[in-house]
Structures are given as C-alpha cells and as structure tokens.
C-alpha cells in the first residue's frame, strides 16, 4: 500500500510537492489553457475528400484478385457469346450443321476443329460457345425471376412482420421441403420441357432463398437506430423502406444473386442432362454432356469441354460473389 495516506480534509497548501493540489470542479476555477471548447473543429481521420460508396466498393473489388479473375472470365464469356455469330460459323462451322459424311463424326481435336466433333459431326467448339448463350441467358433470367418474387415477398415479410411474415416464410418452408431437382422436374413436367420453361422453373424455385436472405437482412437493418431516427423525424414508410432499409439490406442479395447465377447454370445443365431442359438440337452444356455420356472414353473431348465450360463459368460467378461480399461491406475500410 502507499504511504501517501493523507487526511482528506487537510488544506492543500501543506506540502511543497503538492503540485496538483487543486480541485477544479469544486473551486470553479478555470485553467486558462485547458480546452473546454467543444467547438474546436475536429477533423475527420482521413485526409482524402469524399468518395461515393459504390466507388469505394469498386476499389475494394479491384484489389481482390480472385474476384477480378472471375469478372474477367464472365466478361470474356459474354463477349464471346454475343459476338458468336460473327466469328464462330465462318471459322468452325454452324453448331447445328450435321455432317454425315464418313469420318466427320467423333473427330479428335485438330486445327479445323480445335475441340473435336460430336457423333453427328458437329463442331464442339461452336456448340460450347453457343451453349454459353443458353447457360448465361437461363442463369440471368432465372435469377431475375427469383429476385423479382423473392425481393417483393422478402421485403413484405421483413418490413411488416406478423401475419404476412408467417405466410411468406411458411410457404418458403414448403418449397424448401421438396427435393430441389425433383421439384424442378415435376414443374417442367407440368409446363412442358422447353428453353423458356427451364428458366421459369428455376426462377420459381429460387425465390424462397432470396426471400429468406432479404428478410433476415431487412430484419437486422431494421434494428439499427437510424431507422428509429427516421421514424422519429416523421419520415414515411416508403422513405424508410427505400432510403434507409433497402440500400443497407441489398448487399447480401447482390452477393447471393451473383452466386445464384452459377447455381442456375448448374441446374439448367442438370435438367438438360436429364432431358427435361433445353431440347435438341439447341446446344446446351448439360445436353452436350448427356449426349457424350456413352462416349466418355472413346471421345473424351465431348465431356471435357462442356464440363470445363460449366466449371469455369460457375466458379467465376462464385468468385465474383465472394469478392462482392467484402467489397460491399461498408465497415471494411480499404
């Protein structure tokens, strides 16, 4: 223990070392140099000027190499498919052109057919490129449908709660209770197998996850005091929803949506593989795999190339989504 047990009532004038013997509060004296000035302009920590949040997100995304690899791959695939009509048929032939001349089918990769030909003599490279059209279109459209339904129901569920919430979430549970691919097959069996019905089916099946993610995101954003602050200033429900809740709740949806495109591509491939998706002769990666399954060892290029296309494209979307998760997090500074 210390030896400095002084009598609390002893006047401070005692003791020459009593430098600090000064009760500021009680004596009400002011220390001329101690700043009581709360008005001193306090500088923000960062010296740089203002930036937009999306700009910030983009800067963070750019630093994530894997996400950029994903993005570059997606853009490359997009450019390839969009411009396909210009260069694929003249160079490698029409993806639908059946060549029945002897020796034309099941050619191994060569200069004229870099990915080889299938059993009907069609160019595999040409079919893989056009297959990307189907995959990307189905992926994007299916996820758009899921988003449209999922966001609306998720928002209602999260914002209004109670009865609406129970109704939406219990229906989502019903959807979750069915084995996914079987449900898709059943749905297509009702709608009839076609290109259009594939993305409709995948889209319809995708909403519950989106609704769930969005709902929980809204619920957590809603707990923030800035939402109470908006209510306390008299802001309308509409304003609170669209200005305060949505922008903060949407980040996980962007991430999840991006990754779902990959998922939708896989589902399309699976359905087409099972014959319940895109119908021949339209080129689709799943369909190509299905056609190739009996020739896997005789003509491995028939499985390798569409398989590679599915793998890389899906991976690209997942990497992108993962990168966006970090990029969109406001709290992560640089």
């Amino acid at each position, binding site marked *: 223990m210390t030896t400095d047990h002084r009598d609390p009532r002893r006047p401070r004038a005692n003791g020459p070392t009593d430098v600090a013997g000064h009760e500021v509060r009680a004596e009400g004296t002011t220390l001329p140099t101690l700043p009581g000035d709360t008005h001193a302009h306090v500088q923000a*920590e960062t010296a740089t000027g203002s930036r937009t949040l999306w700009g910030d997100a983009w800067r963070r995304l750019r630093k994530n190499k894997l996400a950029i690899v994903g993005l570059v791959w997606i853009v490359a695939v997009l450019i390839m498919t969009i411009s396909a009509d210009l260069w694929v048929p003249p160079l490698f032939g029409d993806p639908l052109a059946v060549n029945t001349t002897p020796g034309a089918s099941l050619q191994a990769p060569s200069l004229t057919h870099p990915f080889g030909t299938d059993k009907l003599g069609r160019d595999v490279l040409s079919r893989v490129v056009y297959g990307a059209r189907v995959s990307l279109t189905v992926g994007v459209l299916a996820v758009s449908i899921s988003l449209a339904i999922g966001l609306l129901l998720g928002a209602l569920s999260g914002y209004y709660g109670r009865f609406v919430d129970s109704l939406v979430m219990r229906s989502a549970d019903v959807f979750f209770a069915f084995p996914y691919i079987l449900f898709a097959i059943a749905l297509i069996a009702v709608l009839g197998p076609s290109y259009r019905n594939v993305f409709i089916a995948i889209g319809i099946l995708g909403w519950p996850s989106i609704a769930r993610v969005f709902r929980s995101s809204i619920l957590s954003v809603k707990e923030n005091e800035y939402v109470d602050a908006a209510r306390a200033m008299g802001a309308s429900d509409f304003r609170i929803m669209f200005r305060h809740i949505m922008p903060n709740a949407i980040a996980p949806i962007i991430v999840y949506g991006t990754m779902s495109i990959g998922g939708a591509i896989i589902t399309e491939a699976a359905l087409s593989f099972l014959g319940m998706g895109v119908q021949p002769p339209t080129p689709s990666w799943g369909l190509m795999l299905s056609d190739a399954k009996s020739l896997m060892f005789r003509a491995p290029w028939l499985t390798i190339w569409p398989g590679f296309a599915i793998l890389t494209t899906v991976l690209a979307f997942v990497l992108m989504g993962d990168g966006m998760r970090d990029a969109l997090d406001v709290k992560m500074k640089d």
Partner: protein
Amino acid sequence: MTELLRVENLCKYFPVEQGVLTSRIGRKVHAVDDVSFSINAGETLGLVGESGCGKSTTGRCVMRLLEPTSGTITFDGRDVGSMKRTALKAFRRDVQIIFQDPYASLNPRMTIGEIVWEPLLVHGIGDREERRNRVKELLEVVGLNPEHINRYPHEFSGGQRQRIGIARALALQPKLIVCDEPVSALDVSIQAQVVNLLDELQDTFGLTYLFIAHDLSVIRHISDRVAVMYLGKIVEMGDWRGLYDEPHHPYTQSLLSAVPVPDPVKQRTRERIILQGDVPSPIDPPSGCRFHTRCPIAQFPKCAEEEPPLAEVAPDHRAACHFAKPFPINLQGGSADAG
C-alpha cells in the same frame, strides 16, 4: 415555468415470444409499469437505472416509437396517444431523439450532409439552397467542419458521429430532445465534449431534455430533476440536489454508493452498501415493493405484500418506499461526520 411533457400511468408490456405452436398469450415483460412524471420547458429530467429497468422503453414510448400499452402522454397540451398521421408528423418536429450507439444511429449509405438534411426534406422546410445553408450551419453548431458535408459516417470517430446525430436532432428546432444514453458508448474525454455540447445547446436553443443514462455521475451533472427507475417503476424522483444529497429510497442509496469515486482516499473511506443478488426478471416481478428481494431494510411481510406509493418525502422529492427516510450518504469519504 410551463409544463412541456406530462406522462401519466404509462405502462408498456411486451409479450414473451414463444415457439410457433405454443400460445403467445399470457406471459408478458413488464418493461414499464405505471410510470408518471412531467418535464417543464427548458429543464432536464434525468432518467437513471440499471439495464432492463425500462428507462429506454419509457423514452421510446414518449416519442411514440413504441405504442404504450396504457397511460397518457401529453405534450404541450396535446394528447400524443390519439395523434393521427398529420398531428403525429407535426409532433415529431417538436420532439427528437439522440441515440446511444454512434455506429448504428447513422445510415452508413448516406453522407453526413444527407443525414442532417433529411429531416428538413421530410418536413419540406426551405428550398434547396436554404436547406444546404442550414445543414452547414448545424454542422458548425455541433462543432464539425461544414466542409465535410459529403463524407460518410465511417470516416468519423465515435464522438464525431455522436455530433452528427445531435445535428440531425437539432435540424427541426425541436422543443424536447430525448437523449437515450447519448454518451455511454464514448470514451471519457470525448464523453465530456458531448455533455458540454448538450449543455451549451440547451442554453442556446432553450431545449428541454429527457436524459436517459445509467451513469449516475453524468445524470447528476446534466439534470435539474432526476427520476430513478427499478424494474419498470420510478422508485424515487426529485430535484437533483435533494436526491443525491439525501436519497430516501434504499435503492437510490445503494446505487449511489456502488459507483466508485475517482478519488482513492474517499473511495477507501466512504461507506458502501453492496446489494445482494441480481435484478429479478421483469417477466415475473416480485410482489409488493419490487425491490424487497434485494432491499437491505425490507420488513416483512409488509414490503412483500404492499406496493409503496410514490409519496412526497420533501419538497419536490418523492420516494416509493414504506420506510422512506433520508439516508444521508457519506459519499465524501473520511469519517461519517464529515458528510
């Protein structure tokens, strides 16, 4: 002195959430139970208590951010409970709130300019140019650099964010501000900056505060009158000086004696009452006086059976205790006669 806010017999019960198939009726959290107080214009009422005592719930009911279960709230002669859309919006111009968490209380996707601007926009005050000037003026008033108008909240520290929240609350020139633990998330040196700012703003703009906090020292510093809450009830209320110098309720006394004083000699020598046990659950509050389970002076069976009324014990000083008597606390340290 005119009365600005009157709260009478305010109750707020929350249903206890249970499973999907089990009944939701029956058990309730008695967050606020029969609370009455009033605040005069220009004064600060401090509402103090430990976590779960209902002080924040009371604040939110006053703002109608929560709908009270029962009771009446009168603001400036108007009944807040019966207000519909337009009246409520007008009411919200007059009553604003400052929150505890400087991180959760600002929308991270809005610039600080937009945040302070928003109330003006919602209430259609001024044109673009006027609003812009007003925002700059407000940032200046709370001690921020108006040039930072385009920055986002994450670029600021906790104390600065709290200033932004204060600027937003001031934007509509409210009469009453509910301060819900506005400094408890801040470091000591920053806390003092914000407390001083709130003090100054009160003088400048003639504001009335309902100041909610768990820190007895902060409450004492800022309040004119103080109400102490325990388990959803006000147990003691009065002028700050009377309440701190001569607390009549044993809970107030133990609370005051439990706060350690930043002065080693005083702290070593002063008397302390250490309460036993924990605060009981508000789902099933104790019968009679809610404090009887931990009270050092409880007498049975009276305290466990009869609920004590909040009765006057001195001018502008009421306490809810059957055995209320002045307990002069020796907070000053030294021997008992020093106080």
